[in-house]
Every structure is written in structure tokens, then in C-alpha cells.
């Protein structure tokens, strides 16, 4: 604790009402339910074309209107939750597991291995993720697997660096020294002693990266680098319908607001969780 915080007059610390946490979790949970059960919730088949009702304005028949093929915007918005939530969670999980492993090993071993790993990670962090994504998708084609790998790959260095930083702090603590002196092998030091004490960092990384993964998945899909054409992906819907922006703004607004609500929900929940974990 720095001198400044000690000397500062204490404010009455109001217990943080977890409104943000509740709201954020509710939004995310709602979208997860939609992603799982949209076939039961959508009023129309999202692929059903109705040439007689193209660009219908929002109204009684179609709550959010129809698009250039007469497809129901509301149903497509619901169906679009699945592609995003099929990519972001596995990408986050992969990045967190791989990044934690790299950071933990580099941080607890130290020495030359640490130096090499960190230099490589530094170079990777500097390498613009968007260029890597464009190159990789052009190389490997568009699929869920490619998306997960691209997003996870660009997050691994970020996770590894924070886990390593936390590991370096823990490594110098006396409990690690004690364990070392009583002859614990180095893998056990890493897994049994240090890891439980950097779990907070890992959790904070996981929540932040989850929001970033949704952001990245939506953006790549908007750029035409997402899942194969035809999927009711939100990003792709914004991109496809932006030609009709003047004529049928609802076709762009619906998927755009869907993305916005999901990422804001994740951000609100992640931010208050972060505050709680770091305080504890």
C-alpha cells in the first residue's frame, strides 16, 4: 500500500451493490438460452424466404421486419446467437489453458527458458492480430475450428504474460521457499503451491478474454472471415444488410444491437467480478 492511500481520508466505503453483475449475468444467460433453444423461440424459420414481403417494416406480422429475401429479422437475430457462442467460449478456454501453462512454466522456471519464451511472446503481442487473422483465414479457409484457433492464438500471449507476472511475485514468497526446502519437486511447486495462488489472475484473464473473444468473433464475421456463408451470424448479417441501410435499417440494427447487448452484458459482469476477486 502506498503512502498516498494510507494518508488519504477514508471514504465511507459503500458496499458495492452488484447491480452490474446481476444485469450482466442476466443478459448473457438470456443469450445462452436463446442460442440453445432458438428453434423453439423463433416465430419463423430464419432461412424461410418470402418474396412477397421483402423489406417489410417492423410490425405485427414480423416484429423486427424482414430483409432483402423476406426472411424474418427477429428469427435471424435469435438464430445468430448460436454461431457466436459456439466460437467464443472454446476460444477463451483454449487461450486461458494454454496461456496459463506457458506463463506458469516460464515464470516458475525462470532463467533462459523464461527469457526465450518472453521474447517470443513480446514479438507475438506486437504482431497485429488482425493481419494474422486475415492471413490465417485466407490460408485455412472459413470454419468454426479456424475461428477458434485464430482467436485463441492471438490471446495466448496476453494471458501468458499476466500469469507469468503473477507467478514471478508468488515465486519469491516464503511458502514457496519452504516447499522447495522440504524437497518438493519443481512440477509440484508449480501446480500445488504457486497455481492456487495465481487462480485470481487466471479468472480475471478468463472473463476479460471472453468479452474480447465475442468482440473478435463478431468482427471477423463482419469482415467476411467468419463462418461459411449462409450462417445467420450477427456480424455477417450486419455486413450483408448494410447495402440496404437506407431502405431497411432494421435489418442492420437488429443484429448490431444483439452484438452490443451481449458484449455489454459480458463487460458489466466481468468488471464487477474483477472488482470482487481483486478485493478478496
Amino acid at each position, binding site marked *: 500500500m502506498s503512502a498516498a492511500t494510507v494518508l488519504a481520508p477514508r471514504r465511507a466505503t459503500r458496499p458495492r451493490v452488484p447491480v452490474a453483475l446481476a444485469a450482466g449475468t442476466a443478459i448473457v444467460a438470456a443469450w445462452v438460452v436463446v442460442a440453445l433453444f432458438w428453434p423453439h423461440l423463433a416465430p419463423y424459420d430464419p432461412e424461410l424466404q418470402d418474396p412477397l414481403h421483402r423489406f417489410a417494416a417492423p410490425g405485427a406480422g414480423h416484429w423486427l421486419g424482414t430483409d432483402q429475401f423476406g426472411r424474418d429479422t427477429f428469427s435471424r437475430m435469435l438464430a445468430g446467437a448460436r454461431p457466436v457462442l459456439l466460437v467464443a467460449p472454446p476460444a477463451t478456454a483454449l487461450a486461458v489453458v494454454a496461456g496459463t501453462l506457458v506463463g506458469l512454466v516460464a515464470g516458475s522456471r525462470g532463467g533462459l527458458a523464461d527469457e526465450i519464451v518472453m521474447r517470443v511472446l513480446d514479438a507475438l503481442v506486437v504482431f497485429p492480430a488482425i493481419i494474422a487473422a486475415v492471413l490465417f483465414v485466407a490460408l485455412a479457409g472459413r470454419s468454426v475450428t479456424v475461428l477458434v484457433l485464430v482467436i485463441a492464438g492471438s490471446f495466448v500471449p496476453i494471458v501468458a504474460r499476466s500469469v507469468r507476472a503473477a507467478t514471478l511475485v508468488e515465486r519469491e514468497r516464503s511458502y514457496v521457499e519452504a516447499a522447495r526446502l522440504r524437497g518438493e519437486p519443481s512440477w509440484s511447486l508449480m501446480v500445488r503451491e504457486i497455481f492456487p495462488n495465481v487462480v485470481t489472475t487466471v479468472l480475471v484473464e478468463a472473463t476479460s478474454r471472453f468479452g474480447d473473444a465475442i468482440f473478435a468473433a463478431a468482427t471477423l464475421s463482419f469482415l467476411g472471415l467468419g463462418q461459411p456463408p449462409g450462417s445467420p451470424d450477427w456480424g455477417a448479417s450486419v455486413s450483408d444488410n448494410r447495402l440496404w441501410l437506407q431502405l431497411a435499417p432494421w435489418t*442492420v*440494427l437488429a443484429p448490431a444491437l444483439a452484438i452490443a447487448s451481449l458484449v455489454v452484458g459480458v463487460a458489466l459482469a466481468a468488471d464487477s467480478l474483477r472488482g470482487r476477486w481483486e478485493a478478496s
Partner: protein
Amino acid sequence: MRRFLLRRLAAIPLTLLAVSVLIFTATELIPGDVARTILGREAGDAAVARLRAELGLDRPIMTRYFGWLRGFVTGQWGDSTLLRVPVRDLVLTRLGDSLILGALAFALLVPVALTLGLVAGVNHDRPADRIISVAGLTLGAIPEFVTGVILLVVFAVRLRWFPASAQAPDGASPLTRLGHLLLPALSLVLLCTGYVARHVRASTVNAVESPYAQAIELRGFTRGQVVRRHVLRNSTIPATSALGVQLQFLLGGLVAVELLYNYPGVGALLLRSAVEKDLPTLQATAMVLGVLYMLIVLAADLAYRLLDPRVRLGAGAS
């Protein structure tokens, strides 16, 4: 300071070399024969083989890599296989347009983020702080193309205040051009403001509650005077590193924003050359963007060091 600069400058060519290997191998591995793509499906095998030889595609990969690298360094970037124009002119023109958009976004970002961060920090834990923090957090989470589309619907379609395309007609006055660029710049600014403001807020809170600021305030100066004379410098300088980080985001965000607003920048060029497999253009664009990224990272580090006397004069700081 000099040692730091030398070390960082020496690291740049090495990193770029690694980046160039990555870009070259990635583009080399892209499926589909380039000569076949250019000539089309109907062309005979002999014609394809002739073009392959002409483009040097029949030579071993190492020869081609070094040939390409030498060409890139000496400014011979070849011709675009798609547009049939020299790549260098194409990329540099597009880069210029992107930099104009990026510079406008940055020029808007700095004062807005600093002001909001200062206001939030001075009003620590009051409603103004909460509103600014939550707004920054939410806006920072929303992809730029999403805010961009919402801005388009509101300001271009409904209110008709701004044009829907970022590209002004030829011969338009600078003011008209600015009007065309305002919405795309704004969607970039909205994304980045929250993060920078958050940093400014944190260091402002620290500075306002520090003993020296409290002592000055106890001596009878108003909050405003304390902030203007003493807090301002201490709270804005740490934000330069946050600005550097956001500048990289800005550059990455250009791809989506340029696509959304039909702006002929370097980001749109990167995307198009990748989709159309225009390899010379793709390689050169990726390299130019890589160089730009590295320069931005260096400039941000440097600015921070130059502005903060403690870091500037600190011994062995690197």
C-alpha cells in the same frame, strides 16, 4: 535513455525480419495457384506454366523469399495481380488515406478521453464518475462496426446530418471531406475513449488524494486550482502508454471501419487482397502495417519517457 533508444531501434529490424518470414510463408501457403487465378479456368497449361516462370513461381522458396525481401527493402514491391498497377503506389496512397482517418480519430480521442478521465477522477465515486466509467466500459466493449452502424442509422439515415460514405467526391473542399470522415472517426473514438479515460481517472484519483495535493488544498486553494496547477500533469502523463495501446487498436479497427464506410484505406486493401489472393499487394500491405505498428509502439514508449521526468532522469531505467 540513449541505451534504451538504441536497444529498441536495434530490435525493430529483427522483429520485422520475423514478421516478414511469417507473412511470406503464410501467403506462400495460401491454396490456389496464383498463375491459374490470374489467367482463369480456361487458360491452357502451357500459358499457366509460362506465367509461373515469368512471375518466378518456379524457383525454390528460399530464393523467392530473399528476392521478395530485397525487393521490399529497395522499394520494388511488384505489380498487383488484381488491379495491374504498381503495388507501391497503391499501398502508399491507401496508407495516406488511412492515416488521415486515423489522425482525425486520434485528434478527437486525446482531448475527449483526457477531459472525461479528469472529470471522473476529480469526482471520484460521485455520480459523474460512475456515469463516465460505466459508459466507457460499455462503449469500449462494443465492436467499432456495431457503433459505426448505429451511428450511420441515426446520423446518416434518420437525421441526414452526415453522409453515409466516408469517401468524399473528387474535388470536394477540405470541410466536406471532414464531414465525410467524422462518423467513421467517431466510431473509432467511442471504442478507445473508455480505456484511456479509465487510466487518466485512476492516476487523477491518486494525484488528488496524494499528500501534496491535500496539503495545497488545506492551504486554501480551490479544487479547481489544485487540479489545474498540480494534478493535471501527474494524471495525464501515465495515460500516454494507454494511448499507445489504443493507437494499435485504432489501426486494427481501421479494417472494419473502412469496410463499413466504403473508405479506400489500407485496411480495406489488406482484406481485399487476402480475399482475392492478390499476393504482392497482400505481402506489401501486411509488411507496411507491421512497420507502422512497431513505430507506434516505439513512439508511445518514447513519449512516455520524454514526458515523465522521473523516468527520463531515472538511472538504468529501460
